[in-house]
């Protein structure tokens, strides 16, 4: 993992670390893989947000995408789970230690097929975590079968045609009450890093569905998940700027052309409208947008839906502020008088 030479950010962040110190081991993915670009943006976002790297919990399932958690933040712990089951592992970890910053990386096979059930329930619970889907429409590690996000009519290299409609993960997430739903493209680094920072600032599950072309199995002309297709068809719904909680908001904005969204941690997202009258805090509009995009095979990117005030799973469960995992044994063990009381009632 190398630092991004283009970056204009200072050499060290608010916790005194350089971007290099958010790196991980060397990628073993194919040269040119979209996932590696996403890895760099995750690294950058963690760095810019000054997340203490030892607090980062990297979680993944199985597939090319799921390998990438080894390629960033190796000062944090990682857990590469079984196929499609990362949400459960993340849920367990966050329930007992919500002081962790959970970053989940999954793929379209891992999320939309084998893990669809767990994905649905993660969203329903609103477990606090960033959930990134590196979406390329194919199973890479098993050599190029269609996944459930492949568009109807798109073709494999072999010429096989996908007959089934795509599952739109963003529409699904909005429907299930996810409070931060974004779509991006691994080729649009500026937008992606802003969306990732917003996701880290959000409380609850933040979904970032990133179209990330597979250079080996799905980058041909008849694919709707190729670099060329994505570059030619990407339509950002707004220009997105991110103002972290620690920066003063200096620039005024025109509410007619720009929308400001205050996130949970005090950060702000500034959206300069490119699509007239689109309001990403309006659930109905967001769902209609997804439906329209799917009908027209449009590739719309940006923060599709945001509701920053939703309660997360820990709040909904009535959990206290102190992580359960940090409690001393003495606090976890009822005294003898408790057992005596239980036994007396059974006599």
């Amino acid at each position, binding site marked *: 993992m190398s630092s991004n030479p283009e970056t204009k950010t200072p050499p060290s962040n608010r916790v005194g670390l350089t971007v290099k110190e958010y790196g991980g*081991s060397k990628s073993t993915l194919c040269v040119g893989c979209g996932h590696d670009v996403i890895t760099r943006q995750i690294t950058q976002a963690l760095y810019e947000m000054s997340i*203490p790297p*030892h*607090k980062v*919990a990297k*979680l993944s399932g199985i597939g090319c995408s799921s390998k990438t*958690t*080894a390629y960033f933040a*190796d*000062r*944090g*712990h*990682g*857990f*590469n*789970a*079984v196929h499609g*089951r990362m*949400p*459960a*592992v*993340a*849920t*367990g*970890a*966050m*329930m*007992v*230690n919500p*002081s*962790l910053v959970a970053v989940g990386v999954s793929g379209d096979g891992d999320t939309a097929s084998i893990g669809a*059930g*767990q994905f*649905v*329930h993660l969203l329903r*619970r609103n477990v606090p975590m960033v959930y990134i889907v590196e979406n390329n429409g194919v199973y890479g590690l098993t050599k190029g079968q269609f996944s459930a996000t492949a568009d109807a009519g798109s073709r494999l290299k072999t010429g096989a045609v996908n007959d089934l409609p795509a599952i739109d993960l963003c529409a699904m997430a909005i429907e299930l009450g996810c409070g931060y739903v974004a779509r991006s493209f691994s080729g649009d680094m500026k937008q992606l890093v802003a969306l990732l920072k917003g996701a880290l600032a959000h409380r609850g599950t933040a979904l970032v569905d990133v179209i990330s072309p597979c250079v080996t199995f799905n980058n041909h002309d008849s694919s709707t998940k190729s670099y060329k297709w994505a570059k030619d068809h990407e339509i950002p719904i707004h220009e997105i700027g991110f103002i972290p909680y620690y920066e003063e908001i200096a620039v005024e904005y025109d509410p007619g052309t720009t929308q400001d969204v205050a996130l949970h941690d005090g950060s702000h997202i500034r959206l300069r409208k490119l699509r007239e009258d689109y309001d990403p805090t309006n659930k109905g509009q967001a769902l209609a947008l997804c439906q329209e995009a799917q009908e027209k095979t449009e590739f719309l990117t940006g923060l599709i839906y945001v509701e920053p005030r939703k309660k997360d799973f820990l709040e909904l*469960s*009535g*959990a*206290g*502020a*102190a992580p*359960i*995992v940090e*409690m001393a*044994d003495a*606090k*976890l*063990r*009822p005294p*003898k008088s*408790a*057992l*005596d009381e*239980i*036994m007396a009632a*059974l*006599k």
Partner: protein
Amino acid sequence: MSTAVLDEKRPETTGRAPVINDFSIHVATANGSGSQSSNNILMRSIFQMGIPVSGKNLFPSNIQGLPTWFTIRASKEGFIARRRDVGVLICMNPETAHEDVKTVAPGAAVIYEESLKLDTLRQDVVFYPVPFQKLVLELVHDGKLRRLAINMIYVGVAAWLLGVDMAEVEKAVAKQFKSKATAVEINMKAIRGGLEWAEKNLTKRDPFRLERMNKTAGKIIIEGNAASAIGCMMAGVQFLAWYPITPSSSLAEALIDYAGKYRVDPETGKSTFSVVQAEDELAALGMVLGAGWAGARAMTTTSGPGISLMSEFTGLGYYAEVPAVIVDVQRVGPSTGLPTRTMQGDIMSTYNLSHGDARHILLIPGSVEECYTMAMDSFDLAERFQTPVFLMTDLDLGMNNWMADPFPFRDRPLDRGKVLKTKEELDAHVAKFREFARYRDVDGDGIPWRTLPGFIDNPAATYFTRGSGHNERAQYTERPDDYKNNMDRLARKLETAKKFVPRPVVSKAEGAKVGIIAYGSSDFAVEEARVILGRKGLPTGYLRLRALPFTPETAAFVAAHDRVYVIDQNRDGQMYDLLRLELGADALKLRSIRHYDGFPLDAETVLEGIEAGEKR
């Protein structure tokens, strides 16, 4: 009303020796008719008279309408296994009444709803027709309560017939309805009504009687699932993820109830225990592994079908070395099987649960006390060995009522295993072993050290958890030597576990050539069978397994006997097969007795199996 008066009026049994405190009462009702309260009151009243009892619920997979039976066994000798022959039958279910009457032993007493006209079915039993339907109309004015109260009337009739002390009945009713005055009053009225009717209208002609003893003083009555739940709570469980499945649901629910009362931080008023009802068993174990990885004492509860679904995550837990406690309340399989009937069905599959090579630690409680102690042990072992540990109970133990001594408080420190939680601990470890390597065996016992996510701000503390091939430093590898080294260390770890798991309980008999090996809920029937065999002149040695992997006592026990009968509550002799693999040449001494009809094991099955074997 005093029982002394009743006793005078009750005629002595004619022509037959009285059977005192040694028979079974079988109550046949329809599911959902509210008979559970009546049966509990009857059982508790007998228990409070100092007579050892056990209660078994034989129920269908149904909420309302299908037949259900409750058996109360009174045993002056303290035998609490299921008893095959029925002494007293209470027929409240017209659907099964004819069949029920046919199954009782000759000489049994049959209490039944008069209109069913059962008395023509057999000549060799004593019939007591009772007009329950008429009585309930007289005794209970609220029509909505009659369906439930009718069951209280049989409590009164049985109390008169068997000599149950009414003072104890009153106490049991107060306990059952937690002293809710109206409920106590209505139900006591129905019970008294039944008793008074019986006193006026019946003449006792059967030999069954209950007389006060002093064998239950200080004892408790509890279901195994509640016992396991108390153990988990006392062991400091921090996280439960579960998916409802019979017969384990009541364990999770009992734990949630108890923790709601006893696991609240007095300073914050917040729970020190977190619970998620998962979307399925796959997710349940996934959450447990996530929580265990993060450093919490984490558990799930399930039964056979859930165990199947947990197979993949169990393998991950084994290879990635993440602590987890899985309680398997076993039931009859496969698939939906007979979900409300008991079986020791998952021994073989759970021992090897996973893909690839895997062997797990299984704890097998043989009583409600052990459900409690082994629930605590399972957390210590899971964290000590950083691996999924299975607590293997079954429906008979888990959902039936067992008499026991109050559980002892355990105050020794929890074993949280080899965890580096602070910077100081990490520094000391690095000073001693040069570096922290997650999967390196620095102590020679196969157990590596671990760190927890988010605890130590130092790059040297972190590692990457994965099920796939990894070297000692938790780095991805497919090198043959790395893989093999790791597998050999895991085998070494299981070898170490043999020194930590609960040892078998061995009971020797002078001059015994015949041995018995059993486990789990079979213990009660085996102990009873041994007493009977002893009286018949066949002393037997007995080894009760309490864990897998096997420990050296087992081979020594087999070596010391000529023939060893292995008791399994499954068709295939699962433990018998595991023992044969374990024992080498001595495996030839093993004989298999298998019980697999869904009912709890009874002493007769063990007795008949051994006697048939000895005649060979």
